[in-house]
């Protein structure tokens, strides 16, 4: 399963007012989970949008299953790629079911109505994200975490080969963070590929095969997660001292805070 699904070639993302930084040359293969780590403003979301073909790169190209993404029609892209955005706008009232069904849009022709099969796919996605029974609730009445799970369920109904998800753990409690990350691993196990922008180093350490570290100056490095997860590199990335613990062969990173002198003595 070494088929390349998404490839960045001499890619420079376009962050206004920033120098080009390093060119990105990486290939995401079937069965892989990639994590993108970086501080606020490093360009994680810009990278994700560029990889999704939603934003023009400053230089270089993105290839989706071998085709230059800007040559593909949006519909063709959406049939292969699901995107979970960090921000969503819901200006109009919609029910959970109406909302999740929109993920079938790329597969239906203009005159098609959703079939029983589409409904089944949507139900299964809602069940997987533990939203069953909420089909008729208005999206605006959901909690932040429920909205996040709804966005992920919507992407699930696209049954995509490649997932791009921007902070999928946002607003989620620990149980649902684990549930979402396990679902992403399952996607990879089924031969799909996943790229996640993450804030949580420990989620990245636990669930990602490959990591891309994105620095605020536009430089980047990427590689095998076991190699990339070194405290000095991460401390430099986040400008934050870290304590590293080992638990059952798993490295855990904890931010080290400055002790308040005075009280401690």
């Amino acid at each position, binding site marked *: 399963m070494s088929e390349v699904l998404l490839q960045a070639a001499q890619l420079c993302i376009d962050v206004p007012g920033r120098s080009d930084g390093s060119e990105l040359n990486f290939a995401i293969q079937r069965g892989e989970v990639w994590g993108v780590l970086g501080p606020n403003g490093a360009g994680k979301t810009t990278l994700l*949008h560029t990889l*999704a073909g*939603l934003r023009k790169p400053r230089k270089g190209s993105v290839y989706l299953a071998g085709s230059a993404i800007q040559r593909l*029609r*949006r*519909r*063709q*892209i*959406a*049939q292969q*790629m*699901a*995107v979970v*955005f960090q921000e*969503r*706008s*819901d*200006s*109009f*009232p*919609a*029910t959970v*079911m*109406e909302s999740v*069904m*929109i*993920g079938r*849009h*790329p597969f*239906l022709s*203009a*005159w098609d*109505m*959703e079939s*029983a099969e589409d*409904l089944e796919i949507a139900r299964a996605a809602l069940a997987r994200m533990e939203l069953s029974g909420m*089909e*008729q609730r*208005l999206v605006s*009445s959901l909690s932040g975490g429920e909205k996040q799970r709804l966005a992920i369920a919507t992407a699930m109904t696209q049954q995509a080969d490649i997932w791009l998800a921007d902070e999928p753990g946002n607003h989620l409690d620990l149980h649902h963070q684990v549930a979402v990350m396990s679902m992403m691993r399952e996607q990879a196990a089924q031969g799909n590929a996943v790229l996640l922008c993450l804030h949580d180093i420990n989620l990245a350490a636990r669930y990602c095969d490959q990591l891309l570290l994105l620095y605020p100056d536009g430089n980047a490095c990427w590689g095998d997660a076991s190699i990339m997860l070194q405290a000095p590199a991460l401390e430099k990335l986040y400008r934050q001292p870290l304590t590293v613990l080992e638990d059952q062969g798993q490295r855990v990173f904890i931010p080290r805070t400055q002790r308040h002198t005075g009280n401690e003595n």
Partner: protein
Amino acid sequence: MAAASYHTPRLLPALALLSLGALLAVALSVSTGSVAISTAELWAVLQGEGDPLHHTLIFDLRLPRSLAAFATGGLLAVAGALMQVLLRNPLADPYVLGLSGGAAVGALSAMLLGLGSAAVSGSAFIGAIVSAITVFGLAHGTGSWTPTRLLLTGVVIAAGWGAVVTFMLAIAPTESLPGMLFWLMGDLAYARSPWPALTTLLALSLLLLPLGRSLNAMARGPLQAAALGVAVKPMEWSIYIAASLLTALAVTTAGSIGFVGLVVPHMLRLILGNDQRLILPACALAGGALLTLADTLARTIIAPEQLPVGVITALLGVPTFLLLLYRSR
């Protein structure tokens, strides 16, 4: 919940019910007036029998006006629904981009010059289109447009047109003032032939039908829509052009009638949900029925005098809308 929990099964019954309502509205409208026509007489005339006077009354006088009212209401409601999706702003209405102001300046100029009703209609249409192009061009600016920019540009341009209209009213000779005021509040007495509006309504409704699901995706914002496979730019252009054309035709047919374009889409969303495949045709039917009824009232309440129909749409629409909003979740 059972399999019927999804909304698509609602589509046909809802549209059938609305079509029936629309038909009843038109029937009521053609039977009401200085000479009342009973249901039996109406049926006889429709069969090609009955009183020839009734025949003339219905087919030559009342039906064209009823159909013009229906088409105008439908055009405005569909245009409003489209604008709300395009700008992702529930406050958007067909006039938000200054179309009615442009049309008013056009129509009032023609009236000031003492031109006939054909010229009034023509220059109203030109005014509306000029306004739509100006707003879109200016909102585009040197960068790309955003809903906020488009909205702000529209509001400012509308204010500009408003000033010109006030100026024209101030310098207008007294005898042409009532006509101008009626035009500004919307008046179907100006409606000439209902057919351009009616055929456009039908044609655009059919054209928009297959775009319904894409519009649903657009309602979630351009990024989401693009990720779901919608070609966002062409889609935005089509919505903008369609909505402008619909509004321009409506304004040309009957002056600037407020309220229909804002309230009908919202009323229907509160009842039917926000699936554009259902909402757009429902808007055409419900907007048409509402304006037909409003026009019937406008010409009968203080007959033989007529009220501007915009007064009635607001008087009917405000309480209905507030009630629905109050009772909604």
